[in-house]
């Protein structure tokens, strides 16, 4: 395969050569034979997915009791994982929508995979609210529908808000992702050689032909979707935080949660995007499209959001003391110094101290260090949710019902399995779909203005 610079040597216009180079490099990933690294990665992901299948089978046949949840901590790893994954998803929407509104053109090389990551993270998150119910076969009762009991859902419950927020978020993310992908699917359609690929991509591309009138409406729709996704993404994690903030429990009942959760979500999401993209750009040969500067930009965002999260930790404790609410103040002292202090310090060191390494340029450019730090950040963000959920519930108002949560092996397997689901979906995406928004990258390249009279 020729690189763009080589292609420019041809007799075509230079601009066309650049466009063709982008097309070639990206569609090659989807259209060429499966690369060698893909199968082992897919195999490992599938093994992890198998963990999910096995643990869900055990869960559905035995009950929530296979986990460590108990009558003191009704929620533990299940909801921790849920909030963790939803948070991861937020970075994708942020990159695709918010950075689009701010005209951050560098987003085009990472937005497609970030959006895909959003959807797969929402999928991994979405299983938890369903499987964490005691009777998951009745989870559909949360969807309003006429029934012979004559009952309706109870809309004052933050869990109902969750149902609407998460389903809206999943729908919007999928539609936004798919709409952005249609012109690129058309590219694959026009370049695929096997018949089944032509038909498959052809159906998905909806007959896209890049007409200017279509582009006009398409761009407008894209802008509107971006404008709708921005308040949506802020609302989703706010609503998730309402699960805790509207409750009566000290440690949960705080007004800082919505912004704090959103900042944390973006923080963890960028860490996950970087974790995925750093290997991807190496393995798929996309280094010239996903550039080092993009990774660096993400690291800088992580410094910013990490500081926000750190600030929130401080404010939380300050307010707990300043409010004069004895229960609140005890919960926070207990969080820091009590039986779960190890979790608290794991959280603080991973979320506040680790991103500070990104001030050093070498840490932003060395792929190993970036991935290592990002994984640590995600560990920290998982602990943040665990600290909020498990440690707050451990010691509530009645000391007669204080307890300590210990996970079972099924907790661990389910968590590993959710990663399996996420990675399996992501690998399928990276193998069969356009991993980079070709049309958008072309549109923001300098060559997109070739031949125009600049006046």
């Amino acid at each position, binding site marked *: 395969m020729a690189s763009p610079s080589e292609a420019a040597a041809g007799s075509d216009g230079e601009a066309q050569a650049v466009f063709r180079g982008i097309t070639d490099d990206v569609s090659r990933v989807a259209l060429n034979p499966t690369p060698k690294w893909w199968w082992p990665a897919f195999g490992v992901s599938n093994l992890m997915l198998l963990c999910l299948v096995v643990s869900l089978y055990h869960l559905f046949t035995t009950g929530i009791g296979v986990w460590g949840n108990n009558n003191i901590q009704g929620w533990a790893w299940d909801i921790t994982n849920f909030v963790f994954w939803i948070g991861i998803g937020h970075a994708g929407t942020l990159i695709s929508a918010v950075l689009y509104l701010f005209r951050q053109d560098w987003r085009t090389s990472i937005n497609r995979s970030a959006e895909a990551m959003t959807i797969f993270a929402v999928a991994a998150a979405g299983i938890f609210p369903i499987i964490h119910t005691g009777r998951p076969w009745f989870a559909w009762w949360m969807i309003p529908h006429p029934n012979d009991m004559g009952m309706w859902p109870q809309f004052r419950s933050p869990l109902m808000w969750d149902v609407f927020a998460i389903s809206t978020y999943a729908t919007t993310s999928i539609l936004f992702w798919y709409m952005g992908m249609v012109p690129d699917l058309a590219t694959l359609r*026009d370049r695929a050689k096997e018949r089944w690929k032509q038909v498959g991509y052809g159906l998905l591309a909806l007959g896209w032909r890049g007409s200017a009138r279509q582009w006009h409406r398409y761009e407008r729709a894209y802008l509107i979707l971006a404008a709708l996704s921005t308040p949506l993404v802020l609302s989703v994690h706010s609503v998730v935080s309402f699960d805790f903030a509207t409750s009566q429990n000290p440690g949960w009942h705080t007004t800082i949660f919505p912004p704090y959760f959103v900042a944390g979500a973006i923080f963890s999401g960028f860490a996950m995007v970087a974790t995925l993209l750093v290997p991807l750009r190496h393995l798929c040969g996309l280094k010239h499209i996903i550039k080092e500067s993009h990774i660096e930009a993400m690291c800088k965002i992580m410094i910013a959001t990490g500081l926000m999260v750190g600030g929130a930790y401080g404010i939380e404790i300050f307010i707990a003391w300043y409010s004069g609410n004895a229960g609140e103040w005890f919960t926070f002292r207990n969080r820091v110094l009590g039986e779960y202090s190890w979790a608290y310090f794991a959280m603080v060191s991973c979320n506040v101290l680790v991103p500070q390494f990104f001030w050093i340029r070498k840490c932003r450019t060395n792929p190993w260090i970036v991935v290592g730090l990002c994984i640590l950040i995600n560990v920290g963000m998982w602990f943040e949710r665990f600290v909020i959920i498990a440690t707050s519930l451990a010691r509530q108002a009645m000391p007669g019902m204080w307890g300590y949560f210990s996970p079972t092996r099924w907790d661990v397997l389910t968590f590993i399995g959710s990663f399996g689901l996420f990675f399996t979906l992501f690998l399928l995406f990276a193998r069969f779909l356009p991993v980079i928004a070709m049309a958008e990258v072309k549109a923001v390249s300098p060559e997109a203005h070739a031949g125009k009279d600049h006046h």
Partner: protein
Amino acid sequence: MTTPANDDETPGAADAPPPDRPGHADGPDGGRGDDGDDGRGTGNGNGHGSDEELHGLLAEFETPGALIAAARKVRNAGHTEFDCYSPFPVHGIDPAMGIKATRLPIVVFLGGLTGLVLGTLMQWWMNAYDWPWNVAGKPTWSIPANVPISYETTILLSVLTTFFGMWAANKLPQVWHPFFRLDRFARVTDDGFFLGVEAGDKRFDLEQTRQLLVAAGATHIEECYVDARPEARTMPRWIMAAMAVLTMVALIPVALVFKARATKSPDPHWHVFSDMDYQPKLKSDQPFADFADGRANRGELPGTVARGQLKADDAYYRGIAGGQWLTGLPAQVEVSEATLARGKQRYDIYCAPCHGFDGAGMGIVPARVEALGGAWPARNLVERGSAVITMPNGQLYNTISNGYNTMMGYASQMPVADRWAVVLYVRALQRSQNAAESELPAGSQVR
């Protein structure tokens, strides 16, 4: 005019690109020789038949800038039915082509408004109107708790309107388009910039338009004909069939649910999820195979006395005093008009069907049996001098409680007080049926 699939040398092409472009090793036609029936390619191998209708002219340009300039020229020449095609949105082409701003935002706004209203109405109807339960002492309807969901439905409907509205306005999905027949057009999703003028345009003239496009700087111009074969312009049959089948299959459960909701059935309902319908506990009327009598109810153990069930007063509960039938009345029974009225009411319900309202033994049951030719004699309770008149009150009470011959006991239907009331009423009946004229109250003797 033909456009051979493997031939780049086309008349009118001012500056054809070389057949093998670098970076595009498979070539424009490598994968496109055999795709006739999905309607994108030339399909019939060597161009179109002579009866095929001209769709228009497709001109290729090298850069976005050239395309914009050409679009401006074509528009200035008075053409309206033309469009530009590019691998990405070319900025500046809208004014050049004279494209008016889409009205999509207005549609989306209306969609969002609908979402807001529907979401709010839904919550109000479900939680405050149709099913207004007291939840945590809160008002059945208060806006703050309902904001998040209204917010989400607003966004959801806006998003759906945007997405589907955009495709509808763009008239997509449309898998077939005449330009797809041209191999060169495949580059529109790669690096090609095209301008297509349609034959339906008022100012369209094959030669003049071609000249106009050449003058606008087209590097290549091709004529495009509409494929005459209808199957080339539609989805492949098998895809349509598969989609139809899938839709039908998906509708089956829905149809079943609607059928189940609309019809009545004598069959017990399906316990897809038992939802505690089958309980491990045993109710008193349930069978239980572990015991010899097959009943779950163990009843009272012999010799036990339940609280409040001592019933030590023989006179009241059994009509016995000192080993003999009670002749008077137990102390608990008050002789009053109210007791008599109660006794009459109970008598009319439980006794009259056989013994008759007058106590003469010809109630509706014996009367009916007699009418049918049989015999079901009931005792005449008021016959002068009969045993019923002379028997002690206690014995009468005992008969009501425990039955006599074919008459069954009424202890389970009538509590003790009611049975004594019936005794009183029967005594009153006997008295009234056998009264002498002289016993009648003064004033009622004369008919």
